[in-house]
């Protein structure tokens, strides 16, 4: 986000829609994410003229064409680097980076890592559909083991990468999770925007053509209570209508699921969500789905100085009191003069 512009810009959802025909497959999860973003932008008072959506390549990366702001659809994997240049050139711009599991975790994994460790002030929305959609269904770095695809007819053998664990390992100071059709997605986006620094949001997105309903195990409305742990700042980590919670197994230094009887979560040892606790954040993003519910919402939020502030602050310091006389610069160093009358050094 950008806190240098105190002025709230008044817009409506309509103001954020472009005249471009949306070209995603009917039923694609991207539609829901687009709406959630377009709904959130007016709520946070964003200014279309100062908002830039930057993307790489892939289905998700078509996103900028559908948002009435500035937009840059770059090349495969390189959006974080382009965003870094934009932000350093004009830190007043609000940057939303839209990427996918192939774009951000595979071909552009290196840039994602460096953007996060540098802590460039922007929002990174990684649409994770666990498949390459635009290239017609090859398995991706986040595909689960055994995923059959045109390139893995017997099932993929490599273990999947976990985007949130990767981001945390890279030094990200904000980690959140949501999924395309969840009503809480807007709140997650708002929290990401409010975080000054690189805010990493993994959004599970249903690719209805090549990886249909792969997230249904936790995203289906039916039984969601038992399978989703929506984290609330300062609140106990409860799910299943408060009958179960997450506690710390102090002996093993792991998390465990505990039963909560009569709402007495304290007696059950359920922990309260402290978004600044990096150790717990590591455990939450690594929490295996199945034995545990899926951790969703803001998992970690602990800001520290941003990259552009540090760079531009240092540059300003280096400029202090220095002459900007180009003529003098050119004549620096050991010089000598050739006399007009003599034609050789005087």
């Amino acid at each position, binding site marked *: 986000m950008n806190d240098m512009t105190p002025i709230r810009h008044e817009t409506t959802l309509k103001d954020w829609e472009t005249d471009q025909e949306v070209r995603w497959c009917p039923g694609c999860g991207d539609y829901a994410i687009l709406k959630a973003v377009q709904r959130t932008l007016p709520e946070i008072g964003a200014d279309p003229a100062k908002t830039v959506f930057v993307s790489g390549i892939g289905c998700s990366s078509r996103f900028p064409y559908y948002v009435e702001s500035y937009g*840059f*659809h770059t090349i495969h994997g390189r959006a974080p*680097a*382009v965003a870094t240049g934009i932000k*350093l050139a004009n830190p*007043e711009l609000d940057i939303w980076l839209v990427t996918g599991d192939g774009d951000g975790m595979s071909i552009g994994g290196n840039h994602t890592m460096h953007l996060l460790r540098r802590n460039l002030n922007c929002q990174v929305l990684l649409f994770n559909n666990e498949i390459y959609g635009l290239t017609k269904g090859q398995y991706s770095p986040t595909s689960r083991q055994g995923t059959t695809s045109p390139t893995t007819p017997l099932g993929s053998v490599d273990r999947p990468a976990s985007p949130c664990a990767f981001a945390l390992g890279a030094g990200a100071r904000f980690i959140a999770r949501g999924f395309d059709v969840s009503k809480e997605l807007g709140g997650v986006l708002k929290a990401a925007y409010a975080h000054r620094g690189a805010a990493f949001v993994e959004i599970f997105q249903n690719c209805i053509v090549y990886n249909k309903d792969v997230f249904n195990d936790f995203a289906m409305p039916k039984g969601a209570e038992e399978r989703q742990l929506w984290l609330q700042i300062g609140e106990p980590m409860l799910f299943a209508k408060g009958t179960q919670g997450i506690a710390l197994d102090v002996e093993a230094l792991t998390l465990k699921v505990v039963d909560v009887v009569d709402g007495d979560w304290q007696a059950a040892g359920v922990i309260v969500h402290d978004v600044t606790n990096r150790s717990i954040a590591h455990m939450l993003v690594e929490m295996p789905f199945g034995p545990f519910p899926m951790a969703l919402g803001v998992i970690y939020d602990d800001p520290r100085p941003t990259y552009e502030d540090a760079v531009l602050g240092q540059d300003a310091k280096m400029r202090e009191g220095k002459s900007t006389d180009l003529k003098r610069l*050119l004549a620096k*160093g050991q010089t000598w003069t050739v006399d007009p009358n003599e034609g050789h050094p005087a």
Partner: protein
Amino acid sequence: MATQFADPEAPTKNSPEAVVVRFAGDSGDGMQLTGGQFTLSSALAGNDFATFPDFPAEIRAPQGTLFGVSAFQINFGSTSIDTAGDAPDVLVAMNPAALKTNVGALKPGGLIIADTGEFTKRNLDKAKYEVSPIEDGSLSKWQVLAFDISALTVEAVKPFGLGNKDALRCKNMWTLGLALWMFDRDRAPLIEWLNNKFKKNPTLAEANIAALNAGHAYGETAELGGQLHKQHIGAVESEPGLYRTITGAEAVALGLVAGANLAHLPMFFGGYPITPASSILHYLVGLKEFGVTTFQAEDEIAAIAAAIGASYAGHLGVTSSSGPGIALKGEAMGLAVMTELPLVIINSQRGGPSTGLPTKTEQSDLYQAVYGRNGDTPIPVIAARSPGDAFDCAIEACRIATQYMTPVILLSDGYIANAAEPWLVPDPADYAEFPATFLADRNGPDGTLLPYARDAKGARPWIKPGTPGLMHRIGGIEKNPGTGNIDYSPEAHHAMTDARHAKVNGIANSIPPQEVTLGESKGKLAVVGWGSTYGPILQAVRKARAKGLDVHHIHIRHIWPMPENLGDLLRSYEHILVPEMNMGQLKTVLRDQFLVDAKPLNKVSGQPFTIAEIEAAIEGALA
């Protein structure tokens, strides 16, 4: 350029017009520093000069080895100097390995100054000498002046209580002192420099000064068997004004700063460490006060991508690398072509392919610059011919990039980047400004916005994000010729491909016609070059013309698009010879563009052409 050293009776007043000296030693011996300081001394003496630093890719190769030899050659004189010289008159060899790898280049009758203190059994073994060459007569076609510089240095710095290792490190200053005596140079600027360099350690400053003085005194007083004469190389007649020494890397950095200034833009420089391009980034880091932002990216791709992002946001984006890094940037260069954003890409070429010869020079990336991208992706290409010329070329690259909304490639090379020459300091006020403009209002009919509408030059408007009311989307995907919205219809792709080509071809209207560097605009033989072959071609043509040969020199700065008169000019000669440090790349482009029978002269040894090599080819072509 004849050496006087062979004649012990030669009076000092008959000093030669030019002398070539090569300092060679172990990579830890400080030969580049010695050469650099001798260069400054030549500058202050008013000589014209050209230098050629030649060092190994290894930072500190094992001591005494053949592959660890670092050399610095300087050609200085009272006449115009355009190359670092074909063959040295004097070779300073700090150890057997330096002697072995360099003596072959020395002129017959030339002088070898060798440090016998280093000619130990161990070092002779490392240099693969069975017997000391100083003793076995194998150096008989040269003059040999061998004495124990190591011991003399240790003796000279004794009062300062340095350890043996530190004491020996002053050897290069002892040698420099002797060289300063040989060429009648003032020691004062060197002493000032040493005091400044070792400000924090006055003992080291004093020891180095003592070594310098001792070397000088040795020349003055020692009985050197009549081999060594003090000689004075007079000042060259040159255009009046203020001069400084400049390397190509410095000139590129200063040219970029000047170019951004003339465009009224802040500059964003994205780079990734690579030899021999890194020095441009190092230099620019110190120039933040001129509106420069530097970014050391995580890789070559990020470096160019960030520069594109900065250009999109209204800065002049610049990135720089050498061949392998430029290859990695290829896809992003296409993005800059497609989004039509200004960008300057500098390639300090080195020997290739792959890692190739990291510290050696070559000009084998011309195809890469002109053709090396997917799709029909025209990018203007400019080539600098010398360190000083790189300044003007960098400004020209900034002009074309911002005026035509296009990436521009500036070709330099390892030789230009590292070599130094005297530079008549220009006045920035003498350069025409080319202020960049940004779109402020909607430019289409009925209040619409057309990000890909074109001006008379074919350039689209530059629209900075942050400008109210001008929100739009751009990207690497094919687009509608006006709105820039996604459009991959056959008509749109054809129209946009044509428009991108027409724009780049049209740059030819804004560049000066090709001039003949030396000679007339028609005749028997044109020697056509580009880049750092400028010096040897110019001298070779000058020499051949002095012999009465009908030969002319054309040196091309604008590689793409080429000057409009170039085809007609080339066709006015009977023969065309193209010397290049590659397998004939410009030659192919000339043949393709103008259907002329251009003949190649190729050299890919990692070393610049000698004048003699080109002279021989000229004589061969006219035979």
